[in-house]
């Protein structure tokens, strides 16, 4: 009985975290700005390898093209 109570208490704590603690933190002045960026850009902040994120593919594409095809312009321009 105690074991099952322990399981349900654990589930309840997780539910409290997801339903109240995390949303409260999301709205604080410290966390809100970066979480708004995550939301707006659709970034998966939980990803743990570069192939899990489309942003990394775009970053690599942009950097490698910037270095390979660096705009230099016509002679006399900067």
């Amino acid at each position, binding site marked *: 009985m105690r074991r099952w109570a322990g399981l349900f208490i654990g589930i309840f704590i997780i539910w409290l975290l997801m339903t109240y603690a995390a949303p409260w933190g999301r709205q604080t002045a410290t966390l809100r700005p970066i979480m708004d960026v995550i939301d707006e850009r659709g970034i998966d902040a939980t990803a743990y390898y570069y192939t899990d994120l489309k942003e990394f593919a775009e970053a690599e594409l942009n950097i490698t093209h910037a270095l390979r095809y660096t705009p230099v*312009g016509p002679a006399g321009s900067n």
Partner: protein
Amino acid sequence: MEEKVESKESQVVVDKAGGQLSDLWKKEDYWAIWLGFLILIVGLIIYLPRGPADMQEKVDKANATLKAEAAKAPFKTIAWHKAKSAKKFRGTDTSAGKAIKKFTSTPQKWTSNPIDGFYKSKAAADAANDKAKPKYEEAKAKDEAAFAAAQAAEAAAEAAGFKDDAVNKQAQDAIAAWQAAKAKASSAKSKASTKPYNMIPSLIGLMVVLGIFFGIGIQVMGRSFGEFFKGFIFVFFIAVLAYMGGKQATMSYYGIGDPAWAIIFGMLISNTVGTPKWVMPAVQTEYYIKTGLVLLGAEIMFGKILAIGTPGIFVAWVVTPTVLICTYIFGQKIVKMPSKTLNITISADMSVCGVSAAIATAAACRAKKEELTLAIGLSLVFTAIMMVAMPAFIKAVGMPYILGGAWMGGTIDSTGAVAAAGAFLSDKALYVAATIKMIQNVLIGLTAFFVALYWVAKVERLPGQSVSVMEIWYRFPKFVIGFIIASIIYSLLDAGLGKDISDNLLNHGAVRGFSRLFRGWFFCLAFTSIGLATNFRELAEYFKGGKPLILYVSGQTFNLILTLLMAYIMFYKVFPEITAKI
């Protein structure tokens, strides 16, 4: 004849030297290689022949445009950006790619109703789209306005022959603003394009396929397929719940993903009602992790270390091993960590790239599952802190964003958090941060190899004992060989296909559209197994005295200082011309 001594508490298997031909089908390490290679080969067969017939022509035409535009103007013109995008014919966008993604899909993002993770009716999808539509229309209008402004600014610069610095700068800024607006519109469009889904059939199908996939190896290794499969249903179910936890919208902002939830849910079960005995045959942490690591090998393409040139190599490949080795020595000599495997796992996850580095290193040195859990837990906590604190600090002190991006990319552990922190500053910061982190990700291959080598050659030998080359071979974790071979093959393919074709068919095909999808599931199954077999009290033992925390904080402090110093020297003193091009 091989002997195995299995420690009940730790589930670390210590092999004594010796090998036979039958190891090839009796040992888990080899099964990880065969199963991993099977997936890799199937992925290559599906995607490599799938490029459009005119792909080389498209690439050549776009590259010619890029070259011409680069010579025409001293900034990236609209046509330059469009030519860059015109080379996208990704394997993942084909019908086969979409079908594979659907079959292997994890639960979807949800906010307050967990059912949304599995099922969304057409009515609900339409309602979500209607809700998101106004924001999409607004973003689309801004994109169109920004494009018009960019066209006008570029025309003005062209009228001045691209020789007026002030007009050129205006055009450059307008085009950058258009690119930012385009990215936001694209993100808003995705939110307004929700399709109905029902994931239950595909999840059941995937469970059966993976159960058979792993079960065959189990059977040949001498254990019961039936018992494994029965337990696998439960392990898979908990893994699905772990993905559900990671996809809860608000929790995901904190970077708490499926690995953490898999451990939490698994431990909740094992430390309360207890993991049922009939599940235990499927609690196969090492089997899942090793197979996942062979697949991860394919994502380690060595050509990527050149992505941002020499500065990137110095920041990611000189600083990182320096911090790793110094932190390990510090941990042994000063902090006096009681466990070498815990020391190196924490050192790797802090200095290299978080969870993925911890997994590879822990497996290479045969760390205990509690040590891997602790290393990941520390990494996730500090990642969340650094994701918020670092961009705020960079803004507050007025640090250049390219420097800030390189600093964050080289120090924030988690890849997702690096993207978030980079995006918070600017697109350039994001590009630099992401590229540095990607180069660090590639370092995992060598880290795992050298840690495994060091461990079998030095750490595991008895004092005074000399270890022969054959002994090293026998003791060497064989799945690391598979991991390295996968990396070498994919690196050669990446180089051989050429950057543009490789990006579309290998990176956005065989890797992102196939092996990566299975790799994610295998690691989640592994973490679920860790949770289901971990005791709270045993885990707490490893944290005694706070030494892991002291080690992490000390190492990360050193990492922050050295990375910033190296990034500044490389990007602003030695190679400022590369920085100017970004």
